């Protein structure tokens, strides 16, 4: 019988609760390591040849399949586990509470990618939302608490759309099957809407740049990896070739990039960068050809690797300086050069520079979009923009730009080790995409060779000339201490009006109460009816009678 790595992670998380000190740390490293070992054994055919289904149980009228192991699931499971190992090394000294939440989050993300039916998928999907919520809250600040509540509201809404869609879908098709959904109207679009909220597709994305920067430096690293990529997995599994996703994805890539350029908080820049990069994946899935889907899922793979590294490096900056605004940083190269070089490996990867991981995935997605000029244009422009904010603006303002305004030292060894590990994986995947780690895991067999002369020259030319433009206008990209309004403005303003309404209603009720009491007092003195002597029971009976009378009149 196959051993489910997600269940191992969740069980491990529960054992973490009662473990202490060294045992806690060893267990924390063992959880993702075990997961990687299970995946290697699965790839080697130890549990049977992939694809296969396992761990099925009878539930009501359905057969629930806890695990469906195929190439698509394995690709995501591998990268989740590799990233989780690096993250756990990075977060070795984090609070127990955060460790437990993070491992439940990781385990449920694995549960989503291995889910063999809609029921299992939904259970793990919701568990993932709960795990991530506690990761945000584990920062234990007022801002993280508030951001967590807003995050919960978004995900509750997403979950509600999803369960409504799944319910209607099961009623319509009579099947729990979790594969390419048939477009049969309302259920299809409800499920899509639920998934798009988790994928952070604008205008449903505001929870991401709102909540992620409020997590702890270690918590943000976990958040960067699992939620949006699980949504990408579901889109690739169930909505491949849905045309609207192509346009949404291209818009998303540009939108996220634009906000990342104007942002001045280093983790908020990276949060918008997630929106932008997930846009490439969504667009690829929308295009729907074999090479486009390969490009989308391989970009999810590399994105987890380089975005985790970027969050770790910026987290290290915040950890050592206590500052996160570009305007409050600068000149740090003198104190933390190693963090800078590790950060730059992530930055060159996301910018799709040859020999770094993003190159072998982003070029595939952009290549697949060639026939759709508008989509291609938005993706290419976003690529230039990405290099501008993550490869130039952010490092320039943090490590250079001015004399040091604050002293700092390199982060602890475990943090550096985790970043070093991920940097090495990024370079390895970028330099040897054909080796066992990426291209051999892709779900479709489509030929693509990233290292063709023209493609390599083009990929070097673009950032180099973008650098020239940056250098000429670099003063325009200095950070400030302002916030950017986004679509969450509507929610916050609506929330304010709602609170306002509740307050007014409450005031009105109080006034009404006073008037009623006054009238009752008058009645008591004028009439024979003794209100004071009337028991609560009589009051209830009279209320029900009035309500029944009202209903009767209404029905007539």
């Amino acid at each position, binding site marked *: 019988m196959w051993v489910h790595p997600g269940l191992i992670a969740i069980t491990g998380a529960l054992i973490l609760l009662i473990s202490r000190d060294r045992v806690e740390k060893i267990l924390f490293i063992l959880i993702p390591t075990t997961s990687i070992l299970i995946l290697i054994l699965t790839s080697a055919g130890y549990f049977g040849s992939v694809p296969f289904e396992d761990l099925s149980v009878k539930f009501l009228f359905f057969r629930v399949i806890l695990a469906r192991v195929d190439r698509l699931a394995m690709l995501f499971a591998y990268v989740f586990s590799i990233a989780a190992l690096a993250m756990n090394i990075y977060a070795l000294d984090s609070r127990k509470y955060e460790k437990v939440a993070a491992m439940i989050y990781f385990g449920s993300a694995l549960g989503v990618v291995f889910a063999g039916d809609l029921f299992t998928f939904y259970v793990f999907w919701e568990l993932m939302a709960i795990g991530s919520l506690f990761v945000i809250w584990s920062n234990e600040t007022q801002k993280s608490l508030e951001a967590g509540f807003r995050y919960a509201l978004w995900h509750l809404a997403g979950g509600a759309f999803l369960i409504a869609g799944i319910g209607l879908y099961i009623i319509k098709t009579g099947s729990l099957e979790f594969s390419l959904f048939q477009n049969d109207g309302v259920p299809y679009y409800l499920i899509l809407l639920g998934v798009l909220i988790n994928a952070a597709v604008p205008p449903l994305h505001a929870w991401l740049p709102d909540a992620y920067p409020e997590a702890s430096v270690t918590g943000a690293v976990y958040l960067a990896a699992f939620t949006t990529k699980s949504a990408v997995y579901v889109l690739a599994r169930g909505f491949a070739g849905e045309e609207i996703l192509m346009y949404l994805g291209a818009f998303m890539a540009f939108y996220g*990039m*634009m906000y990342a*350029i*104007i942002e001045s908080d280093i983790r908020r820049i990276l949060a918008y960068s997630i929106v932008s990069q997930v846009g490439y994946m969504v667009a690829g899935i929308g295009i729907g050809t074999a090479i486009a889907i390969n490009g989308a899922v391989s970009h999810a793979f590399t994105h987890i690797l380089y975005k985790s590294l970027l969050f770790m490096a910026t987290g290290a900056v915040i950890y050592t300086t206590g500052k996160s605004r570009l305007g409050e940083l600068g000149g740090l190269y003198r104190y933390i050069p190693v963090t800078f070089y590790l950060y730059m490996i992530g930055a060159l990867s996301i910018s799709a520079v040859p020999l770094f991981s993003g190159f072998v995935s982003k070029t595939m997605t952009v290549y697949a979009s060639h026939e759709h*000029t*508008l989509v291609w*244009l938005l993706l*290419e*422009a976003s690529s*230039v*923009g990405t*290099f*501008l904010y993550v490869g130039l603006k952010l490092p320039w303002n943090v490590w250079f730009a001015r004399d040091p305004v604050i002293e700092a030292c390199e982060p602890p060894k475990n943090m550096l080790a985790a970043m070093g590990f991920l940097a090495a994986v990024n370079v390895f995947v970028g330099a040897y995409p054909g080796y066992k780690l990426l291209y051999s895991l892709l779900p479709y067999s489509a030929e693509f060779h990233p290292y063709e002369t023209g493609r390599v*020259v*083009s*990929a070097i*030319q*673009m*950032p*180099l*000339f*973008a*650098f*020239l*433009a*940056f250098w*000429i*206008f670099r003063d*325009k*990209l200095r950070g*400030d*201490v*302002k*916030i*950017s*309004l*986004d679509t969450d403005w509507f929610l*916050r*303003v609506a929330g*304010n009006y709602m*609170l*306002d309404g509740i307050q007014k209603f409450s005031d009105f009720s109080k006034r009404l109460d006073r008037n009623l009491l006054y009238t009752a007092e008058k009645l008591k003195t004028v009439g024979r009816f003794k209100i004071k002597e009337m028991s609560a029971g009589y009051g209830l009976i009279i209320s029900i009678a009035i309500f029944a009378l009202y209903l009767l009149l209404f029905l007539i």
Partner: protein
Amino acid sequence: MDFPDDRVLKCIIALAFLLVVLDTGTYLLHMSRELPVFSALFGFAVAALLIHFSKLVEKAVKRDEDYYEKLRKGR
């Protein structure tokens, strides 16, 4: 018969012009992708445009850090 409102006519002309520009632009872009140094020019031009465009976007969406607190208090 004249148009009821001049603005309607202006909008139709502007829309027609925009579509022609978009179509031509898309076609030229599609063709020019094969030209040498296209990526270099594209990288430079897009980066310069984005930097300047971002200043416009900043004006529209940037607010003071205590914007939401003020909004809450002003309620």
